[in-house]
């Protein structure tokens, strides 16, 4: 079983919101769609949900046509659950009524009341809301609201769960703890999850596979490790791994940085970036030393973060970010040299 998206495009008037997106999503896979705002990730989710009709291309679940420009299976017949950034709770219903709502449809008319109650109790239990079942949305905190939305989305055990930045409206602390709950729900239901977010940490932490998008196009698809360690485009490198992109000339595995005479060895950089004369280096891959064979620069900013210190280093007019351990303490305007840490593997 798989959800197959083929050459999907969406135009709003003359604006291209989504352009030629193709991906096959496996059964029970957790796919994170990651990108900055306006990159088309929400459009993709809405197309998958059937809230919008594609301009070209198609979406198929197994062999059933879900969406094409000519034909669009209505949302309510797609067997999916959805969670929104704004929670989308109905202000006039209690927590329990929210969970019950999907079971009131005709499809479940023959299910007996006891069974329904059992399902509701189970769903509320799984999101930890059993004690709050008679509360109204305005009596709940942000995290509780999103749990209600989750319970409502999973009660009918849908094949596909669509999540549109579900954690973006929550505060930092809660975000981290809710990640775990969403992972639990994924394990418990075994549903295919399409999860849209602009937070790369969230995506790296939860996804089975990630899809990086920019300006309506797919930049790269891969596992979190692939995306983080081996970015294939400059955008992916900068957006997900916060890579510094050094310019220079490649000669096989050697890279000569253009503004200094520094030379780096690297065997992992992909050919696409090499062709663009770019060398991606993560902030934690640099070491700052007083003297040595590397890129010279001047420290222009310093942020103490407890575990490490984040430096901005000006290298011939180009800013480079370096995360250094606290024992490597430098002051503003210090002249330093950046060298690359030796890979341990």
């Amino acid at each position, binding site marked *: 079983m798989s959800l197959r998206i083929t050459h999907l495009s969406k135009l709003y008037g003359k604006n291209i919101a989504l352009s030629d997106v193709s991906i096959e999503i496996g059964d029970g896979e957790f796919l994170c769609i990651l990108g900055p705002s306006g990159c088309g990730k929400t459009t993709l989710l809405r197309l998958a*949900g059937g*809230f919008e009709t594609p301009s070209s291309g198609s979406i198929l679940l197994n062999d059933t046509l879900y969406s094409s420009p000519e034909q669009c299976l*209505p*949302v*309510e017949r797609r067997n*999916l*659950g*959805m969670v*929104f950034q*704004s929670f*989308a*709770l*109905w*202000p*006039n219903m209690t927590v329990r009524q929210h969970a019950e*709502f*999907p079971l009131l*449809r005709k*499809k479940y008319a023959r299910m007996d009341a006891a069974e329904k109650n059992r399902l509701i109790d189970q769903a509320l239990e799984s999101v930890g809301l059993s004690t709050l079942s008679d509360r*109204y*949305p*305005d009596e709940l905190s942000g995290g509780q609201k999103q749990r209600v*939305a989750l319970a*409502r*989305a999973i009660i*009918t055990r849908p094949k596909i769960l*669509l999540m549109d930045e579900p954690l973006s409206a929550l505060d930092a602390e809660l975000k981290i703890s809710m990640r775990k709950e969403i992972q639990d729900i994924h394990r418990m239901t075994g549903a295919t999850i399409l999860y849209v977010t602009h937070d790369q940490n969230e995506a790296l932490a939860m996804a089975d596979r990630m899809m990086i998008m920019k300006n309506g196009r797919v930049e790269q698809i891969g596992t979190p490790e692939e995306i983080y360690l081996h970015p294939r485009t400059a955008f992916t490198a900068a957006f997900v791994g916060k890579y510094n992109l050094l310019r220079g000339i490649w000669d096989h595995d050697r890279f000569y940085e253009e503004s200094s005479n520094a030379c780096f060895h690297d065997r992992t950089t992909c050919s696409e970036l090499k062709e663009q004369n770019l060398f991606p280096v993560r902030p934690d891959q640099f070491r700052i030393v007083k003297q040595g064979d590397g890129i010279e620069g001047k420290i222009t900013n310093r942020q103490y973060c407890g575990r490490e210190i984040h430096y901005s280093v000006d290298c011939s007019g180009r800013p480079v970010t370096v995360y250094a351990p606290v024992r490597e303490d430098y002051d503003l305007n210090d002249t330093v040299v950046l060298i690359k840490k030796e890979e341990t593997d």
Partner: protein
Amino acid sequence: MKKRNLLYQALGCAAVVFLFLVPLFRLVLMSLSQGGGYGFGNYAALFEDSRTIRAIGNTVVIALVSTLLSTALGVLFAFLNAYWNLKRKKLLELLVLAPFIIPSYVITISWTSVLTGSGELNRVLRLLHLGPVNLYSLGGIIFVLGICNIPLVYLTTVNTLRKIPRELEWAARAAGCGRWETLFRIDLVQAAPAILGGSVLAFLSCMDNFSVPAFLGIPASIPVLSTYIYEKAIGFGPDSFSLASALSVLLSVVAVAGSLTMTAFAGKSRQTDSIRPDFSARIFLNQTARRRVEWIGITVFLLLDLVPLLNMTAASFQKIYGQRFSPANLSFQNYRFLFTNSGVLNAVCNSLFLSLTTCAVCILIGTAAAYQKLRGKGAAVRLLEFCASLTYAIPGIVLALAMIFHWSKIPGVYGSIWILIAAYLTRYLILQIKGSTAAMLCIHPSLEEAAHVAGGGKIRMWKKILTPLLFRQTLSSSLLIFVSSLTEMTLSSILASAGTKTIGLTVFNFQQSGDYNIAYAFSVLIVILILFGYGLIQYGCRESGGKKERSPEHDAEGTRSSHKDALKRMEESIL
């Protein structure tokens, strides 16, 4: 300093009590007075009269049925305009809202021109064996009032619908609800408080309305409470005023109770608060269906608004009332009469003077009150707001009576134009207070603080900061006051004397005396006058708003036309 403030507050409260509360108190007192003493005799006498019971019955039936009519149409078109992918929405909205700025007596007159006994429409109906339709009947009153109140329901509903987040619908769709089921289970339920609020407004407006039953009911001797009070008040008799007062108290109790229910409902509902209205379409029809819905909608309202008005315009050029249209029967004589008759000219001058004065004073007092309410604290402003709401909630005919009892005690007011000004101010001030408050809410106090920090004095701050920012919104909210007082009829029907007749009253007199064609011609002029005034204010708004002054809220909302803006102000005013 503190003592002086206290003194100001006390003076303010005293003024409010004298201008707003004492008149109502005198009315209640009058309803209880009999012979030399006080008692409930007037009420007992009223209920012995079968006409009273009939008037109450008629009032309730008319109000209920016409409210149903306006609610059905208002809600339907609110849904169409808010959610469907129709084009020509602006035209449709304009047509739906037309009865809001055209006075109800003009609508009544235009319909009587369509449905004259021997008119074209009735001729056709008779051929179809549907019989002649008589507008001078209970059904006629219900129909015309229903049309007049559609905008009230529409305005309260349409914005609520736009503010229902799309995600609420999507969540229901994902939960297995079909499109139409979602519309009923989610949107209609969410909008129910607003729809209910709109219907209560329409209901109150029916109770309050005097001109429609006066034009259609008095000739057919169908009494409703408002016309019954009028008949009693202008009738002679030892205790006609006392009886009218007692009736007024009855009517007011029902009206105020209605207002309170509405407020209670509005407060109780669980609403997701302060969401930006979403103007994009949610329900998509294919092109043929879309066109069909558009044209059906536009046709319905063309038939309801425009056709009667055009028919009335055509009829206004007729020499003899009730004849078929023919070149021989055409002339300008009705207009010639209007332009040469000194009474008409006098009435137009009076109404213009009244409406401009009312507008100016309301803007001054209303804006000052709004400023006090938001920035300062004081009992006087709160009392003023409460009292002004009260005098707006009670029916106009009742207020008119109260004004007589109060101002006749003060020499030189009753019988002059000043009693009308006093009455209009008492009636319409709340609209400006609300409008100015809404305008001022958009200006963050920090703007003022910034002006103070920058070293501007109070006067400079008002001149340079507040006036430019408030100008546009304040002016557009005074539009409703301008139009209402220009075409006002209820208050002036009781308060005007020989030299101080207003436009509305003059039309009423023409209609009562059977000069129908002159009434048509005058109504046409009124519509032109309203459109002119509306255009003038629009122009004023655009001039001031278009250049550079934009309040923060307006920046966010982008390129909203000033027309929409004026309607929004109106809506804020009535709620």
